[in-house]
């Protein structure tokens, strides 16, 4: 029996995603953790491409690959790196492992026992998405941009040091 190429690609993308995620939570070096986060985000972008969400795959690569990981690396640069060496795992990590495995089991049980009426995966082209975003969801979109503006101004105010008083 021939395995479908899209399924093989999906498994590859999932492996990159989950491997990267495990790298984020397991590695002792925090710089490696941010690069593992980058790998996980690229895997998620691959999954988006495979279910025909092209626009969101692009957004994912731009925002997470371009912005989030860079911002995290800047944060690491501005705080002292050697502090992180013994900061990786809490001593209560087995409890955390039990909780997360339990959560995973619960979610998988819910997924397997719930039946959803599905169809073939369908694409939403850029044009339709843009039209709906700027007509039906125009006000939430503007509010989201306002939220971003306020968050960016807020973060500048938070980290600013007064030149004379410092």
């Amino acid at each position, binding site marked *: 029996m021939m395995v479908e190429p899209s*399924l093989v690609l*999906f498994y590859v993308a*999932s492996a990159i*995603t*989950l491997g990267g*995620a495990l790298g*984020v*939570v397991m590695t002792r070096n*925090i710089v490696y*953790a941010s690069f593992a*986060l980058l790998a996980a*985000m690229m895997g*998620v972008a691959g*999954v988006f491409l*495979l*279910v*025909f*969400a092209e626009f*969101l795959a692009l957004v*994912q690569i731009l*925002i997470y690959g371009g912005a*989030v990981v860079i*911002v*995290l690396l800047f*944060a*690491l640069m501005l*705080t002292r790196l050697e*502090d*992180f060496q013994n*900061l990786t*795992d*809490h001593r*209560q*990590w087995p*409890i*955390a492992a039990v*909780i*997360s495995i339990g959560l*995973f089991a619960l*979610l998988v049980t819910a*997924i*397997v026992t719930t039946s*959803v*009426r*599905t*169809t073939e*995966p369908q694409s*939403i082209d850029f044009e*339709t*998405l843009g039209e*709906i975003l700027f007509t*039906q*969801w125009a006000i939430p979109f503007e509010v989201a*941009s306002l939220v971003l503006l306020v*968050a*960016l101004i807020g*973060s*500048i105010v*938070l*980290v600013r040091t007064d030149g004379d008083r410092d």
Partner: protein
Amino acid sequence: MIELAHLQILSAGLFAIGTYGVLARRSAVLILMSIELMLNAVNINLIGYAAFVDFDEATRSFGQVLVIFVITIAAAELALAIAIILRLYRNRSTVNVDEIDLMKW
């Protein structure tokens, strides 16, 4: 053929790994990274439903619009959280969440 259940299980796995990261890590920056992982798990789930469930086109595209909003809010949250972490580091010179216990009774 990719099924909806594949995406859902990937999403559940990513969310569980993110939960472990939030609970087990002690560095605030690593906790932030784990929160990003959990948000991405939610996005995978939303995209899966938007692509596979038998909705009309308006409802279908709502899934993708919602993912755009989630990514926007995640970016805003990250910028603010990094600012708070830098401020905290400057004032207390630590990013260990166990030592930041000023508001603990």
